[in-house]
């Protein structure tokens, strides 16, 4: 599928292009603000959701090679919408009743792309949250072991043998897997 010209907004986020990011805010934030405020949220909620959605899109573009094959506006609105619906559920607010007018004439691919971003980012957040539950030693070992540096060098830096480092890394990852498995089904 062809890349949509609005891919430039993703490039703008990746390159921290002030002008393009400002364009995103100028063009698309009013719609999100109105919709969230109409659906039990505050202006601050809208600002948070808008900002977090852009960070999610940045992460997906950076780490998962996300490319836009649809216009940016409905895609962004759907990412925001999904995020706000989760928040409404979490806070036990009144269910969302107003629909997003700007989304009425867009195809399934936009919904699928936005859903994928939401799911992937929820998963990444969970992984990182559970990582924080590990002890300090485990976090340090994993942080270093997964940094791409040679394992022998890392073992030396930590003052342990290579075999010990490998064993500890495996134990720490196994613990992390069990933490994640408690919360997530692949």
């Amino acid at each position, binding site marked *: 599928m062809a890349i949509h010209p609005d891919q430039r907004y993703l490039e703008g986020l990746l390159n*921290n292009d002030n002008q393009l990011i400002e364009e995103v805010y*100028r063009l698309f*934030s009013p719609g999100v603000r109105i919709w969230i405020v109409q659906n039990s949220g505050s*202006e601050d909620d809208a600002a948070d959701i808008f900002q977090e959605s852009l960070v999610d899109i*940045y992460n997906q573009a950076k780490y998962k090679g996300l490319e836009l094959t649809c216009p940016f506006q409905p895609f962004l609105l759907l990412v925001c919408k999904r995020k706000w619906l989760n928040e409404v559920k979490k806070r036990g607010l009144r269910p969302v009743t107003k629909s997003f007018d700007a989304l009425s004439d867009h195809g399934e691919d936009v919904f699928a792309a936005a859903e994928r971003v939401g799911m992937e980012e929820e998963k990444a957040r969970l992984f990182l949250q559970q990582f924080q539950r590990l002890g300090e030693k485990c976090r340090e070992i994993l942080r270093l072991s997964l940094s791409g540096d040679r394992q022998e060098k890392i073992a030396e830096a930590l003052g342990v043998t290579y075999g010990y480092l490998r064993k500890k890394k*495996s134990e720490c990852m196994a613990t992390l*897997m069990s933490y994640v*498995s408690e919360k997530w089904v*692949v």
Partner: protein
Amino acid sequence: MAIYTNEDIIRYVEGELSSEEKQKMEDDLRADVSLAAGVELYRQLKETLEQRLPADEGATAMQQTLRDMRGKYFGGAAGGGASGGGADVTSPSGEEPGAGGKVVKMKVRADVFRKYVVGLAAAAAILFAVVMLWPSDYLNTYGKTQMVGSAERGEGNDSLMEQASAYFNAGDFEKALPLLDQAFRKDSTNQTALFYRGVALLHTGGVDAARSDLLKVYAGGSLFQYEAAFYLALSYAQQKNNAVAKEWLDKIPAGAPGADKAAGLRRKLGVN
């Protein structure tokens, strides 16, 4: 069918099983959906951590831009700080009709905001005292160092390092940090930039990122190796983790750069 632990899964993905064990596991993988899900979970987990644990300077810069825009395009307490303006300057061009009604709402918010500010200021003062004053005691007592000039770098990096050193030596670590970062990204063998970036990060509160830099410097075996060990010790001392601080101090031999400061810190921590 065999029962597999998470560690078996890790060994399989890391290619650490014998050929018989691997064959057996692959047979079981075809029949056991939950085992296959475990393998997939480990792969995703590892990939995510590899990608997202290292500090992402690009994301930090982009998020700062988002905070600035938030202040400009959204009202409310959180956004007001970023734009530096009050509630009356938050209307972007192309604002939907009815903005006049919002002014009243924003005035009410301003009162609430003021209360928040008072509360936040009190909380911030306590936080400042706890996080900055107490821990930086060790940092200010033992963590002083001066950046020395660098003569062997390329032209562009020389100028960067000079600017960084001016800020660093003046104690303006916030300004030194991006320059050191830039210098290191231009030349990833620049151990001087990496070491001082680590120290600057420590001074600006980025303890995890500081440790990551300093560990690399220590592992690199350059002239900064033992100084890096000293700052690693200092980072743990700040968090009252004297046992790990001592482990790092123990790595510094007598006569090595940083040995004098290490001896001082040892005495202070009582870990001789």
